[in-house]
């Protein structure tokens, strides 16, 4: 297995994904007194090219280390950030990789990656229950953290009308949290 630089990884995604890659960003930072470099790579991918991106990632390393999905409610859309770590085993050679897919609220679906990376199953179940994004083809559809008697159609991490705001108990003398 060759260890590529962040720039080479970026280029390999550009070659492999073609038009499905919307934007890329490399973030570098000095760490420690010896001025070592820490690198992270951020890729914005269209939903259509998302599975191709994950399959390409698996070409770079036998099994890329998946960390978690971080979903963000951006108002009109929902961002899903799939966090990975490439190249373990060497001092500061690893690249923190984030693949972002932006989904319009009218169509909140994303294909599963659990068939490619089985360790992603918890994060996919959590994304479904917390953000209300349907993961198509998910092998285990059940809730993970939220109990079964929690109402359907309420998603704790959403900032719109599907958020849990109506369920909050506002202590007397305090203002409730406002939302649009």
């Amino acid at each position, binding site marked *: 297995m060759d260890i590529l630089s962040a720039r080479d990884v970026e280029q390999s995604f550009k070659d492999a994904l073609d038009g499905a890659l919307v934007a890329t960003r490399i973030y570098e930072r000095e*760490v*420690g007194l010896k001025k070592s470099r820490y690198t992270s790579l951020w890729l914005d991918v269209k939903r259509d090219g998302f599975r191709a991106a994950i399959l390409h990632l698996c070409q770079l390393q036998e*099994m890329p280390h998946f960390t978690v999905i971080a979903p963000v409610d951006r108002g009109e859309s929902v961002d899903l*950030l799939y966090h990975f*770590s490439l190249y*373990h085993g060497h001092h500061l050679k690893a690249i923190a990789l984030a693949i972002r897919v932006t989904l319009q609220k009218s169509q909140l679906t994303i294909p599963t990656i659990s068939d490619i990376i089985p360790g992603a199953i918890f994060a996919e179940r959590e994304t479904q229950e917390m953000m209300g994004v349907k993961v198509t083809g998910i092998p285990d559809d059940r*809730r993970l953290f939220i109990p079964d008697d929690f109402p359907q159609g309420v998603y704790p991490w959403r900032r719109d009308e599907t958020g*849990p705001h109506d369920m909050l108990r506002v202590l007397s003398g305090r203002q409730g949290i406002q939302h649009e």
Partner: protein
Amino acid sequence: MSDSIHKTTFTMPIGPIHPAIHEPIRLDLSVDGEEIVDVDVAAGQVHRGIEWIGMNRNNPVQSIYLAERICGICSACHPFTFVQAVEQAAGVDVPPRAEYVRVIVAEMERIHSHLLWAGVAGHEIGFDSLFHLVWRVREKVMDLTEYITGNRNSKAMYQIGGVRRDITEEQVPTIQKTLDYYKSVFDELKKLLLDDPTVKMRTKGVGILSREDALRFCAAGPTARASGVATDVRQDHAYSAYADLGVQAITPDVLTGTVVGDTYDRIVVRVLEVKQSIELIEEALAAMPEGPILTEPKIAKLLAVLEKADGEAVARTEAPRGECMHYVRMKAGEDTLEAWKIRAPTYANLISVPAMLIGQQIADVPIAFASIDPCMSCSNRAVIVDRHSGARSELDGEQLHALSVEKTRRLNSELTGK
């Protein structure tokens, strides 16, 4: 297993107060006699919506203290990760001395956490004298933590842009004295934990996680390293002062020559990491530069900077249980975080639990499950279902613990011929 055989299985619920770690999680075990054929993990019984509070109520400085309370054992790793993520997103610098103080506190936590775990492991197999002994040894680092930070746990050391307390010149001899104590007892401790026939008998070949499965299920920390995956955030993504210190991931073959990926290997990794932490603290004390410990001591000024911040960042640290990750996104003009996602190590390691337990006996569940050092605040009980009739029955922690102790006694008497 083919349905045509009509083998009788039983689903056994273990939890939500798990017998190994006194924290809420439920394991649903499908068993065929004594053998486990399938496992389902039911998490979520202590989900407290911490991320939601960080996104809707708290300002980032308040969220440091909230992050510190995600876990009562690793109360350094979460604030450590969180402040790094906010610093990167908002562009706040950290003085070099603060980075060294951060690392020293994090390594003291690793020593206490690994020793705590080793004691619990002893208790799980009914070896309570080992449990009491290891926990007595652990007290020294708890005393040191109190001496440095003012508290045994929930240390409140981490602040955005540095640390809240310095490690002064007059504190160094006391730290060194504690480290010398650990060095003097380390060989004895290692012998007790790794050479004892009872420990070996109950942990060798139990709860095996292959290297391939560790990679597929994205295991983290000592769980992954014991399966031969040389990953360690302190090495791979060296952060803070670790970038200067040069940490190397410890896999069990360093000591035993081979990687099995069983519970024993997970003990090997943790024992060796205690020594690694002692050395790291010594190195950090020697290399620690002079200078300030906080970029912006005035909280109001810091909050003003944070409110203007617009950006996102991800930070990872190596918690005692493995990779801990925080993602934050900040929006200018908002005093709370726009988004906060926490991925604690047990969240990842729970996915590997079924692979470890299938094929094991019920009496091996406590020690095998405990071997990932599960922390439920990071991420519930046992239910037994009869495969033939679908009947469910519950086994509580004490019954399960009694099964484990009985197995140790039985194997011990076989061993000694009494």
